[in-house]
């Protein structure tokens, strides 16, 4: 079977990237293995767990359900785009302070989902947060501290001006 490689150009976390990839390479594997951005995690590879969530052209997407070739010309942001150790995103700060993670495996996907929620709804109720994260599975926390973290981040973001990085 022909396995013609395809040249792609993608903007990832603000940087232009060009690579030659086989069509079957998942976006999740492209980010992790080609670009060494291992913040995006791989859990189920069929779209139900949410650990692979990234942002494609401004909306969260399951990177395990996209092929890298489909990201040609797209703007992709991963969890690495949120902040740095020296300058955490308010969501990262809040997840730390409110024990929104234990093993941390679901956390990148949770952060990308929470970021999308707060951009659309800066003042959510706990129920709205629960609904928003319902597509992200967590085995450790029982979700309540994740909701605490998102609510805390929402308040912090409402009270300060967030400078885009």
């Amino acid at each position, binding site marked *: *079977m022909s396995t013609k490689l395809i040249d792609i150009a993608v903007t990832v976390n603000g940087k232009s990237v060009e690579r030659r990839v*086989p*069509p079957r390479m*998942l976006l999740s594997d492209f980010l992790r293995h080609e670009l060494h951005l291992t913040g995006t995690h791989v859990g189920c590879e069929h779209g139900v767990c949410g650990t692979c*969530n990234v942002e494609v052209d401004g909306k969260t997407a399951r990177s395990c*359900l996209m092929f890298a070739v489909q990201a040609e010309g797209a703007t992709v942001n991963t969890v690495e785009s949120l902040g740095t150790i020296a300058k955490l995103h308010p969501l990262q700060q809040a997840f730390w302070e409110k024990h929104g993670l234990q093993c941390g495996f679901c956390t990148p996907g949770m952060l990308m989902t929470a970021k999308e929620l707060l951009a659309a709804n800066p003042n959510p109720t706990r129920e709205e947060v629960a609904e928003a994260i*319902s*597509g992200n599975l967590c085995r450790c926390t029982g979700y309540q501290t994740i909701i605490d973290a998102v609510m805390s981040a929402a308040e912090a973001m409402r009270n300060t001006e967030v400078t885009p990085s």
Partner: protein
Amino acid sequence: MKPAPFDYVRPDTLDEALRLLAEQGDDAKLIAGGQSLVPMMNFRMAQPALLIDINGLKSLDYHRRDGDVLAIGALARHATLSASALVRSLCPLVSEAYRHVAHGTVRNRGTLCGNLCHADPASEMPAVMLVLGATLVLRSAKGERRVAASDFFLGLYATAVASDEMLIEVRIPVSVTSCGHGFEEVSARQGDYAMTLVASSLDVRGGRIHAAALAYAGVSDRALRMAALESRLVGQMPSQALFEEVAAAAADSIDVSEDQHADRAYRRDLIRTLTPRALAQAAARVAA
């Protein structure tokens, strides 16, 4: 959990996509949202030799009123449709069912037309299309044909779409004021595929049921519309007793499936319980 190798092409025009389908349809699959297709490819349950990516055909991302139907294009995303005030006003059953469809991230890319072509037996929208009497427009390089929803869902993951065809548009009749809709679903988590779901529409005039539509999903190899039960409702006054009688008949007549999520007895129990609720909702929602 990695897909088999395939070739990939992203046509710039609809004509080019249809030409590729005509040439290689038997070995090719269209990809739009990919939220159902790619899991199947990752499991290697689907191994197309060629993937035709239609995400560049932006003009297919629309939903609009067209006379007395709501017309929805091939690339209309679940997220757009579920948030749409136009959809809610023209076809409220669609908006209600969307509360049970997947999760936000999946809805960002997934498309209604892709969902209907995938025809998962426990998916919400096939049942909704059956109840609302939707028409599905199939286009190929040879031309266009229209298929009624009642002729579209043929079996497990099987539809009337031929290998050289694309589902280009869904046309849903606009709801009339004498109609009310009902929808009930039980699933392990909200957004999961249904263990059982009931969708219904009742047209009530002068206190009697003038027309009825009743469909199920999650209970068989495809969404089912229950014409025999609908004729039991027509001409009757809506009542709890009538709805429970229809529910019992549904539970007895459907050859319900069994799997690790729910056994036959539980599915029959869900049919008996959810049917009266959905019918009562529909009757109550008829505009006063």
